């Protein structure tokens, strides 16, 4: 009983620490940068975080399974260009979105096929996918932006509900869905076992193929959703959209406590991780701190949070 309590405390603290740090920074910024807590800034912050935050949720699935997905940034670009081209070509908004998402799921599952059936390590597979799919995007778009998208589509991301951007609500919906998937679905449960010990999972009758396709498919899907939202927000199909997002997504998941060796990670942790990074960047900008220095800070944050995590694990052992 005692140990259960200790454990619960420990788990709460793991995410509690993050919440605490975020609160401290928010309070600090509220004092030193009066514009920080204005509605306009919060709207902006939330709108920016939503898109990378959605990509990071997909990445969390992959990281829990012990893999990595470097292709999400490029898949985001695929969704942006494919949806924009279809709409420009006269296809309806919803069919266009649907097709672009399906393309991303398909590419994600191809990652899964190469990893599971081709036995290529996830890093290499998705590195290949990242490069190749960016190439596809450039080829399709002629490396040019696609403008002139239908008004109802481009205005979606500008709209607000209760004063908050619609993008934020999309993100919240996805947070809820992914939370339920990771904690309650059989596939979600299997994913943890898969990431913790692949051979034991296989010998326990877990369908390894299905689980692999599932995690990379989800990651592709959410990259696609982020791509569509970004296209709406920028009112253009942008061939370079999402470049570098894979690293932001990994950073959010890792700061949120996911382990790159697989088997652990939470949706809430990733959300908090994404928020923390966004607040540091946003607050830093408001304070007029050189953005290069902010990059250094985020880099240090990533490494330090993993270091703290490892120390906790080390203490847990003995």
């Amino acid at each position, binding site marked *: 009983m005692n*140990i259960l309590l200790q*454990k619960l405390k420990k788990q709460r603290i793991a995410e509690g620490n993050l919440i605490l740090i975020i609160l401290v920074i928010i309070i600090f910024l509220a004092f030193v940068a009066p514009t920080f807590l204005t509605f306009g800034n919060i709207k902006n912050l939330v709108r920016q975080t939503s898109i990378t935050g959605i990509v990071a949720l997909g990445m969390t699935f992959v990281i829990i399974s012990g893999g990595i997905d470097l292709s999400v940034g490029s898949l985001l670009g695929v969704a942006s260009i494919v949806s924009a081209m279809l709409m420009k070509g006269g296809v309806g908004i919803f069919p266009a979105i649907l097709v672009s998402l399906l393309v991303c799921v398909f590419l994600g599952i191809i990652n899964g096929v190469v990893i599971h059936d081709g036995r290529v390590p996830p890093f290499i597979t998705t590195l290949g996918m990242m490069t190749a799919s960016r190439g596809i995007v450039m080829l399709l778009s002629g490396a040019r932006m696609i403008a002139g998208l239908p008004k109802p589509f481009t205005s979606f991301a500008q709209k607000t509900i209760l004063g908050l951007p619609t993008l934020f609500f999309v993100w919240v919906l996805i947070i809820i869905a992914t939370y339920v998937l990771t904690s309650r*679905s*059989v596939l979600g449960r299997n994913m943890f076992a898969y990431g*913790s*010990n692949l051979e034991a999972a296989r010998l326990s*009758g877990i369908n390894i193929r299905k689980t692999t396709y599932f995690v990379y498919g989800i990651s592709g899907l959410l990259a696609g959703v982020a791509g569509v939202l970004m296209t709406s927000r920028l009112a253009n199909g942008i061939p370079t959209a999402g470049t570098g997002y894979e690293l932001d997504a990994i950073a959010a998941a890792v700061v949120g406590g996911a382990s790159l060796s697989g*088997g652990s990670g939470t949706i809430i942790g990733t959300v908090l991780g994404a928020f923390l990074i966004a607040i540091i960047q946003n607050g830093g900008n408001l304070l007029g701190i050189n953005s290069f220095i902010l990059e250094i800070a985020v880099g240090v944050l990533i490494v330090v949070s993993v270091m703290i995590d490892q120390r906790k694990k080390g203490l847990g052992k*003995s």
Partner: protein
Amino acid sequence: MDKTPFLELKSIYKSFPGVKALDNVQLSVYPGEIHGLVGENGAGKSTLIKIIMGVYQKDRGVMAINGEEVVIDDVIAASRHGLAAVYQDLNLALDLSIGENFFMGSFPKKNGLIDWSTVYKKTAETLEDLNILVDARSRITDLSPAVQEMVTIAKAVHKESRFIIFDEPTALLSNEEVEILFDIIRHLKKQGVAIVYISHRMEEIFTICDTVTILKDGEWVETLPVSETTENDLIAKMVGRSISEMYDIEHVEPGKEKLRLENLGRNGVFQNISFSVREHEIFGLFGLVGSGRTEIVRALFGADTPDSGDIYLDGRKVQIRSPQDGIHYGMGFLPENRKEQGLALGLSVKENINLSSYGNITRFSFVNRTKERDRANTYKEKLRIKTPTIDQKVKNLSGGNQQKVVIGKWLCGKSRIFIFDEPTVGVDVGAKREIYRLIQELIEQGDAVVLISSYLPEVMGLSDRIGVIHEGRLEIVIPRSEFSEEQLLKYASGLE
């Protein structure tokens, strides 16, 4: 024997938060002495050797080498004092060569660069000295598990150690290889090395040790010459109660045929394997390491795909192409290596118990969490798994309790055919007894059991019939009334 012990520990105390791990423990090991260290899991053996090796620090007590007090505050200090340990787990870099592993951290240099010819020459000498017939340049992954184990031992020997701890060194070895290992240990003894030998296998203690120290619940019980004790006496002192007959289980009259293999084969691994197992029956598979016995049951369960032959369940021919198929037909498989194949160590007891059967407690493919907890608690109680809660990570449990979690997983999945591959390796006497009791419960309720064990008393004590495997072939099936050690060994080594 010298008057001064090489290593002397007096009044050692060590506590971890909430647990007294060692309470006034003493140990003296003389040069040229092989000193057995026995006790159940949790008795404090591992803590003690970790203190000797500088992994943990003692709270109180004195440690002396050659009569002089020393402080060993890390592994490097231990090795400077000539202390070495061979642990259960391999401590080798799998993708490097034997030579590289031997000299890791202390490569001989010539003009500032690594002197490779010396590395391989010295490695070859050590290997030859110990009668291990492999090339010093071979990569570790290319060696069989048993040879890997020998290489681990050779690595410890090579470091000019004056004191070596062997922690369960025979877990992966066949009988023949155990003999080679014993020769190595005796060779070291002659050179005056002080040796501590830890094993759960009592007969090994009596074969090789001069003296034996018994620990129980972190306390020193007794140190006495091996010649003045017996197996039963030792076990009684370890567990604090007498165990008259370890393998005493009640056999049940077998019922109708449950499982039949016909000419099962996998190219280059095993051929023409045919046997059947009935309800209430324990079918033993005996063979040396590498004989193909594990591969046969893996193919039966669906973990590997056989190239030929058929499998019948309840008289009907079935296709088993994956573990999912095996589980679908009611099989449960407890693999040889529980840490690498049996358990998701980083996950909780609850998750591991439910692992193979989440599908049974779902609605619209969502897990019912109350049922998940209930099931885990049921099997925790039923199997007497010693864990504070079902949310404990499995890696924090002792070997015996980990093994019970694997069994719990299959009970939870409602298996009717249980395949046990070395179920008691690295498990202490008390937990062993409990595992045997569980196996007995299984056969009482009509399940069929296939048991692999390289430990003769175990496989002979439990099985109704034993099939002997030699080089991928089923040599003979012997009924219980005709069991004899010599017979089994003869068939297993291909002499019959």
